Structures are given as structure tokens and as C-alpha cells.
């Protein structure tokens, strides 16, 4: 067993994990967060995507033991108790999911993109999401939802901060989760 101390969705977590257990199984079975999904188990589908130390990873290709000292964000960390993340809201409004298995992975991947590139264009979005497979939607609705979430985030940050888009882009690119959460709260407030 490996002793792991980590932070998951802003909360400190400490547990013992068998060395061979993947980060995906660790999150699902040891920590008990079942948002990340097992799809292909070989790095093709991205259903298990989580953010580890600021980068999206396929959690099926990481050992749980490797999370020691790290910081993890899963799909459960995107919404706040009172509001959805703008991406979650946009996915609902654009019907960007059917069976839903791939959705947590898409949300986490897209959230990481929006944080670093709040105005990514369609081509960039499609390129960024190439590591996430969806066998239902045909991707167009997902891409539309991500573009909508970008618009929602930028309008809200504008009205909130009453400053031009540039400083907003900077602040939302900061590694703190709070900027994502706050735009999420006002995002659903508009609807």
C-alpha cells in the first residue's frame, strides 16, 4: 500500500492505495467520486479525464500513487453547491450529450481549455478535445456548447468586473479554481 496525501476538488484527502491501482480506480473506489468514467482503459477515449497539477490527464494511465503531493480536479469540482459551471449549463442548453458516459471527460477537458484560453476558436476547441471521444453526438453540439460557455463566461466576467475582456482573460487563466466557480455561479443566474 502506498500512502497518498493529495487535494481533490480543493479538499485535502489522505488515503492508502495499492500500488497497482490506477488514479481512475483510486478516485472512483477509494475516494468515492464516480464522475470520471472508465471507457477504453488505454488512453484513446478521455472519459476518465481529470486535471492533475493543472494539466488534463487520462486518469486510467496514471497510478493513484503518483497523485501523492498533487492537486486533482474532477468533474465534481466544476459546479458549486448553488450553480452549475457555465460548461455544464451550456451542455444542457445545447443538448451536447446523449448517453452521457463521455460527458464528464469532455467537461473537465473543456474547463481546462477555458481556463487557459478563454477565447479559443472552434478549430482550437476541436483540436483540444481530440483526446475525448463521443460516439453519440457527432461532436458539433459539444463544440457549440463550449463556444456558448466561452460567451457566457466572458459576458459575466465583463458585467461582474466591469472591465475590458483582457484583464478578465488573465484572471480566469490563473490557476485558482475560484475564478471558474464564480463565473459559473453568475452563469446560471442569467438563465
Amino acid at each position, binding site marked *: 500500500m*502506498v500512502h497518498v496525501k493529495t487535494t481533490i476538488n480543493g479538499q485535502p484527502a489522505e488515503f492508502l492505495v*495499492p*500500488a*497497482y*491501482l*490506477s488514479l481512475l480506480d483510486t478516485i472512483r473506489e477509494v475516494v468515492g467520486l464516480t464522475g470520471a468514467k472508465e471507457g477504453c*482503459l*488505454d*488512453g*484513446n477515449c*478521455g472519459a476518465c*479525464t481529470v486535471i*492533475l497539477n493543472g*494539466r*488534463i*490527464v*487520462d486518469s*486510467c*494511465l*496514471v*497510478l493513484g*500513487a*503518483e497523485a501523492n503531493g498533487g492537486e486533482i480536479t474532477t468533474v465534481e469540482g466544476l459546479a458549486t453547491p448553488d450553480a452549475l459551471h457555465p460548461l455544464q449549463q451550456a451542455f444542457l442548453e445545447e443538448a451536447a450529450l446523449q448517453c452521457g458516459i463521455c460527458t464528464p471527460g469532455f467537461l473537465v*477537458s473543456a474547463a481546462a481549455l477555458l481556463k487557459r484560453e478563454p477565447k479559443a476558436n472552434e478549430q482550437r476547441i476541436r*483540436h*483540444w478535445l*481530440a*483526446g*475525448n471521444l463521443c460516439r453519440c453526438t457527432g461532436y458539433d453540439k459539444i463544440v457549440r456548447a463550449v463556444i456558448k460557455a466561452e460567451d457566457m463566461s466572458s459576458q459575466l466576467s465583463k458585467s461582474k468586473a466591469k472591465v475590458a475582456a483582457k484583464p478578465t482573460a488573465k484572471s480566469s487563466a490563473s490557476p485558482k479554481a475560484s475564478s471558474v466557480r464564480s463565473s459559473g455561479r453568475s452563469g446560471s443566474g442569467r438563465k
Partner: protein
Amino acid sequence: MHPFAYVEPKTVKEAVAALSKYGDKARPLAGGTDLLVQTRAGRFNLDAVVNLKKIPELMSVKLDANGLEVGAAVPCYRVYEDPKVSAAFPGLIDAASLIGGIQIQSRASMGGNLCNSSPSADATCPMIVHNGVAVIAGPKGTRKVAIEEFCTGPGKNALAAGEFVVTLQFPKPSPTFGAAYERFIPRNEMDIAVVGVASSVTLDAAGKTIKNARIALAAVGPIPIYAVAASEWLKGKPANEASIAQAAAMAKAAARPITDMRGTIEQRKHLVEVLARRTLTKAIERARGK
């Protein structure tokens, strides 16, 4: 997965000791994007996984007057997101930015790609044309192996028991150096190369004559192939379409592909010629600063 121990050495010496202790029952872990898939598939019967990412040398990127030294476990994104490395080593960047998707690039390393020793490895051919050298540590000390001599067969390489790659070294390119890597895949992203070709050139000061060239071919033989004849032939030739066409034909002749689910012998040979032409053209453009 079969239960195994997890070892996290802090130094090269500790890693050598751990790998030597477990012998062929241990594998070094860099990005893990091949290792964990293969372990799950039962390719290895492991007693231990030795995570190399806590060893500083394995995780550092050094760029100085001598050239570039990339730790063998440095993930791809750290290579292509470094503006100075991007500017000086375009062939490496072409590869690092197309291996897998963003998730894979967060973890997968060029050193791991080399050690996995697949003939279709996207990073290996660009490392060959950038004159790369693998620095290897093991029970008998440190040694260096040129990248083109590293792979010995599909999934096989020059590493002996207890050895692992510490860093990858690349000499500083001259200002008139250019390189490029392209591959053919049926999808837009996230696929294994049907054929890949890397090319590099060093031009004279006027940008008219090729002083040095290197061409390397992926997925058309049991190992990544350094196309020596085509590369040598280009030396001293004018940097024009006729030279490119001739070298591309010679590169095609060096390919020894098989027919499999990804492509046929004929298709792959044809692709080598097309991609050699394209990458040589791009390498020359980059060498001229375009």
C-alpha cells in the same frame, strides 16, 4: 493489474539499484501512457514499477550554448510550450505536439517513446534528424548511444538489464538548420502513424546549397530507419526541387514496410516519397527562416 511494488527513487543511483534488484520483473515508469496499457494487457509480469519522475535530471529541460538536454521523463507539453526550444528544434516540436491528444501530451515523454521502441514512434525519427543522443545510466555507469542506433527491433532496444535513459541530448543547430516531421494517419488526430518521415537540412550561408541532411523513416521497417544513402547524397546538392525529388526517391528505396491493418507495402512506400518531399521542403523553408 497484477499487484506490484511502487518504487520512487530520488537519484539515478537509487533507480539503477531498484531496477537491478528486480531485474526483468521491473519496468521504469516515465509518462506511463505505454507502460500501464501494456501492463494491463499482460505484456509484463511485474514485481515493481520504478517511477523515475522524482529524479531531477529526468525532469529537467536545459538549453544552453552546447544545445538541448531533455530529461527522459519530461512530458511532451513542456517541450513544445517552451518558446526557445520550439524555435531551435522544430522537428522535435512537430512530433511532441502530435503524439496522442492533450491528455497524453501531459504525461507522455520523448524518452518513453524512444524506450517503447515502436517502429512507428513519432518522436524517434525527429530525434534522429536532430542528431540526438541518449544518455543511459546502468550498473556499469553511464554511456551514450546515438538515437539511430538505439532501437534494435519492434519493442527492443540497446538497453541492458538495469539500464534506463536519463536524458536526450541534441547539439545546438546552426542558424541555417531546419527540420520537420510529418506522418500519415487516416484520422485527423490521435492515431498511430501509417508512415512518418522526419527530415533536417543545414544550408550554406546563402541558403542555396545543402551542407548536411538527415532523413529518418517511421513505420516502414522493424525499427525507425535512418535513410543514410538519401541523407548522404543530399550533401553538397543545391537546395531545390530536383534534389528534393531525388532524395525522396532514395528514401522510398530505403523503406522496408510490411502490409498490415494500417496500410500496404505499396501505399507505405508511396507515402515515404510524398512525406520525404514535404518534410525536406519544409525543413529547407525553416532553414531559410521562412
